[in-house]
């Protein structure tokens, strides 16, 4: 944790000094995780791209206000969650869209393994898309972004118990959906 915090301090200092290398490092370190989170929350790659774009730009804009505490990843993830919620509210989306298959990637498995992996991923994405939003958010923030339940509760504006419950019910429903497919 101490090393993470020191690295984060150095990164923020370098960013504040205008270092492009630091900018690239920030982006490369967090982009895929944040994009995955945004895709999971929104079910829409284009919306997820916009959300990730806005989060990074917003972070750079508010660099002078950011206080280093070793939780940059969690901070950015929370920003993505907030943007996703705002976006969903703005478009008044009610239906859950089918998730897109991830056809990119740089894995080197044999074709059959890759096909199986894509199929499992596709099933997971479809199952996630069927969860109520708050449960999906709790599951993804906890497992994808390593946010603890206290942080998730604060983000969702609910009690710790409710946040934990949302995660538990979300996981149970996912399990049920995945075993029934």
């Amino acid at each position, binding site marked *: 944790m101490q090393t993470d915090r020191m690295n984060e301090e150095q990164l923020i*200092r*370098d*960013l*504040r*000094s*205008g*270092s*492009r*290398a630091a*900018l*690239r490092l920030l*982006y490369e370190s967090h*982009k*895929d*995780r944040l*994009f*995955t989170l945004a*895709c*999971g929350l929104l079910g829409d*790659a284009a919306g*997820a*791209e916009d959300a*990730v*774009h806005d989060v*990074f*730009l917003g972070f*750079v*804009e508010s*660099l*002078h*206000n950011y206080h280093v505490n070793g939780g940059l990843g969690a901070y950015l993830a929370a920003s993505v969650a907030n943007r996703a919620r705002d976006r969903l509210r703005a478009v008044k989306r009610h239906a859950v869209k089918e998730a897109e298959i*991830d056809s*990119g*990637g*740089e894995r080197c498995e044999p074709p059959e393994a890759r096909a199986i992996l894509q199929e*499992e*991923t596709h099933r*997971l*994405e479809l199952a996630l898309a069927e969860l109520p939003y708050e449960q999906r958010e709790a*599951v*993804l923030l906890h*497992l*994808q972004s390593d946010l603890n339940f206290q942080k998730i509760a604060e983000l969702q504006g609910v009690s710790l118990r409710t946040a934990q419950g949302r995660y538990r019910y979300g*996981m149970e429903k*996912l*399990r049920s959906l*995945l075993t029934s497919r």
Partner: protein
Amino acid sequence: MQDAKRSLEEQIRNWCKRTSDTLDRRILDDLGEKLQRQEPIAPAPMPAGIWARIVNATRIRLAAAAVVALAILLPASYAAVEAVVNYFTISEDHVCVETPEPNVTVGFAARRTISVGGPDIASEKEARAGLEEFYRLYREGKARQIEPGLWQVTLASGEIFKYRGSPEWPAPDFAAQKAELAEISALRSAGKGERTFLREMEQKGQTLRVYQVCYTLSSGKRMIVTEVVNPDGSLAGMGAGGGGFGGTFVP
């Protein structure tokens, strides 16, 4: 069952969607542009020391702003490596005052925080010395602006000193301050302002109450002022810090 649970958790943890090259280019370009255009300015509260000194001297209207700049000291052989190791934070204070009319003094106080770093800087003293030499060379017209907001000089030691930010202090707009103060007075008379009680203070045997009051001006700007109120409710004095404005302090 536990294995199945762990397996699902792992599956979700390992689920990863990669960004496209197009998105990467778009975001990095926009970020680079944003970082370059970034004005390293952040408002900061009025430091107590400056406030106390100026208030005790005369009736003064104060404003405060902080400008964050960054100075990087590099070895003469610096090429493409940004190898800054130690940073020292140096605060600089700047005050300018005018007296627009008898018995009214308007002042502007600003604090700037500068982070000075370099592989060979071992102490704050060395950092300050480098910074002072930079300012001297800058005033002599020997600083070169190598890109917007980035200045460079070569110190007597041969080291390259880079300064990101504006070496100039922001020029206060006294006319705007007076207009804003007049609007605040009008808002106070109309009882408009969000008041928060801070504390009591004793002065000349009387207990005065100190409030923080937030006024929203017609321009949309929110001004936070500190008001000191006499026991009879009349205003004893007012001052402000942060956001680029001050108030009249009448002792």
